[in-house]
């Protein structure tokens, strides 16, 4: 039967730190990083009593380094141990502060991540970092006065919201009126006779005003499409498909979402029908049409949609 046995020296061991390490720890408590200059001119950081390159004593000259520095190697801890300084994923890193010739080993905190997370891509050798000191009143002159290092700021997120009152213009206003009643309207061009949906009040091909209103079908043909892997608030999930849908009776394809079919089965020439939201959710907006879904009709041959690409 195993017996529990603990080995502990109550209060821990008392150690003299000497003038070199003592200086480092004292400066650290003041929020500064200092290295010590070796005879060769190298700055040993964190300071040692001797130059590890040749064993000679170091000089009395202490040099402030960093606080910024560069990652020379790192190890990613996805599942921190109880003994580790952070309880979320972090890296151990060898960090050489600017002005130092050797590196310190410390924890590198790259932000809030769930346990088990993989290392973020931006974590790599050469990454710039700086120390995150504990508040001055909590520092005691211990290597852990640096809570961890953190990446330099290389990006910010700028606010991006502005509000507008948009006038759709007379033609589009009329189109939205139709949509709010469950109708899809277009204009026929008096010159080329093509039906333009949504109408703009002019024919972009001939440059003439258009006024003849035509209601077009809710069914159409996918002329071309794209598979999107970035989430979009309008789409139920990724990947989703955005497509050009040529409504029956119109001559300009409309951009719309396609759903109700796996993204990898959408094809050019596929027949689709508009799926409308429940009537009580309708407004003066094209989003009354939630998306298009396939209908059970044979695909349209490529030649008949070729000019609408």
């Amino acid at each position, binding site marked *: 039967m*195993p017996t529990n046995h603990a080995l502990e020296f109550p209060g821990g*061991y008392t150690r003299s730190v000497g003038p070199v390490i003592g200086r480092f720890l004292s400066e650290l408590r003041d929020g500064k990083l200092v290295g010590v200059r070796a005879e060769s001119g190298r700055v040993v950081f964190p300071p040692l009593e001797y130059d590890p390159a040749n064993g000679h004593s170091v000089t009395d000259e202490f040099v402030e380094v960093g606080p910024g520095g560069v990652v020379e190697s790192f190890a*990613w801890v*996805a599942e921190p141990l109880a003994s580790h300084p952070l309880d979320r994923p972090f890296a151990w890193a060898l960090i050489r502060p600017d002005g130092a010739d*050797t590196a310190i*080993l410390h924890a590198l905190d790259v932000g809030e991540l769930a346990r088990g997370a993989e290392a973020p891509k931006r974590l790599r050798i050469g990454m710039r970092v700086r120390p995150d000191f504990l508040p001055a009143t909590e520092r005691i002159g211990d290597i*852990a006065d640096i809570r961890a290092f953190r990446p330099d700021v290389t990006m910010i997120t700028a606010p991006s919201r502005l509000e507008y009152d948009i006038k759709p213009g007379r033609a589009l206003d009329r189109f939205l009126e139709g949509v709010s009643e469950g109708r899809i309207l277009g204009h026929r061009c008096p010159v080329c006779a093509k039906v333009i949906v949504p109408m703009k009040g002019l024919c972009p091909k001939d440059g003439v005003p258009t006024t003849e209103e035509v209601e077009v079908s809710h069914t159409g043909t996918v002329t071309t499409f794209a598979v999107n892997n970035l989430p979009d608030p309008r789409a139920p999930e990724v990947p989703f498909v955005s497509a050009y849908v040529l409504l029956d009776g119109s001559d300009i394809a409309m951009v719309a979402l396609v759903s109700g079919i796996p993204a990898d089965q959408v094809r050019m020439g596929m027949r689709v029908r508009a799926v409308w939201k429940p009537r009580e959710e309708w407004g003066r907006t094209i989003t009354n049409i939630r998306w298009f879904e396939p209908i059970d009709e044979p695909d349209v041959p490529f030649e008949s949609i070729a000019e609408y690409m």
Partner: protein
Amino acid sequence: MKDIAIVAFTQSRHSAEENGLSETEMLLPLITGVKEQVGVSRFDFTCSGSNDYLLGAPFSFVSALDAVGAWPPISESHVEMDGAWALYEAWVKMQYADIETALVYGFGKPSQGSLREILARGYDPYYLAPLGIDAVSMAALQARAYLARSGAKEGDLTAIAARSRAAGRDNPFALSLDDPAADAPYDVAPLRVHDVAPEADGAAVVVLATGDKVAEISARTGLTPAWIRGIDHRADPHSPGVRDLSVSPSARLAGQKAGAAGVEVAELHVQYSHEELILREALDLGDDVVVNPSGGPLAANPMMAAGLIRIGEAAARIHRGENRRTLGHATSGPCLQQNLVAVLEA
């Protein structure tokens, strides 16, 4: 220089689980067996390697001496390191003292505590230990530095683990471990779980002899003596941040001083897959050199014995007449800080 040979080697069947034996009980059958094998019951010198922190008891090696039989008083010493360094001490002692036989052993039972925390007790108490860093994290820093410098890929590390585990399955003393899984998780990235040597309880015993004793013992055992043609150990600075972790200057120097060139087989104390690549480079081992045919520590890592076992395995190949010139290597400290190389010949 006196010619000194390894004339006997034995090891326990290493176990990944606590098997109920005390350290002394683990050693007793090995030492009794080796005494019988070589026909010597009193050795001129005894030296052991172990670590008190594995048991959490000061001078724990003293009680292990009961397995040797230390009365009437014997000439004895101990190193708080892998048994390979005990072998070095015995070799030095034999060089200058008038002794002909030495018993060397190493042992450890990491199953009784948290090895990662125990090994951290060896780290510098000002800059490293207070951080709570563990041995695997230290090794992973070195692995990253090596991969970045050499261009080697993580798959190269997995290949080493796979080869070591396959060899270990053929070694009755090693653990029986499956091939690395294709989706094996990281321990501390870039090291995956199979890149970290599995902790094991175990012990190993080596007998050194010189002078007339070599022929006398060899005649009894029927084994070819493995002559120590060179042995050397070196250390790099302790702080990982003051050296280039992607190389091992101390292993290179120890290899040169011990005369590593031209060996047929190398048993390397590889506790993490990437260490084999760093050591191969440092010891200048070509593709024709067979590395760790025993499986090495990646197939069983009995603490404080694994380094001595590397020398023992290298010697055993000569004992059995399988090779003429072999190399045994042991390491200690974080990130291959200290390295010992022994070159053996038939």
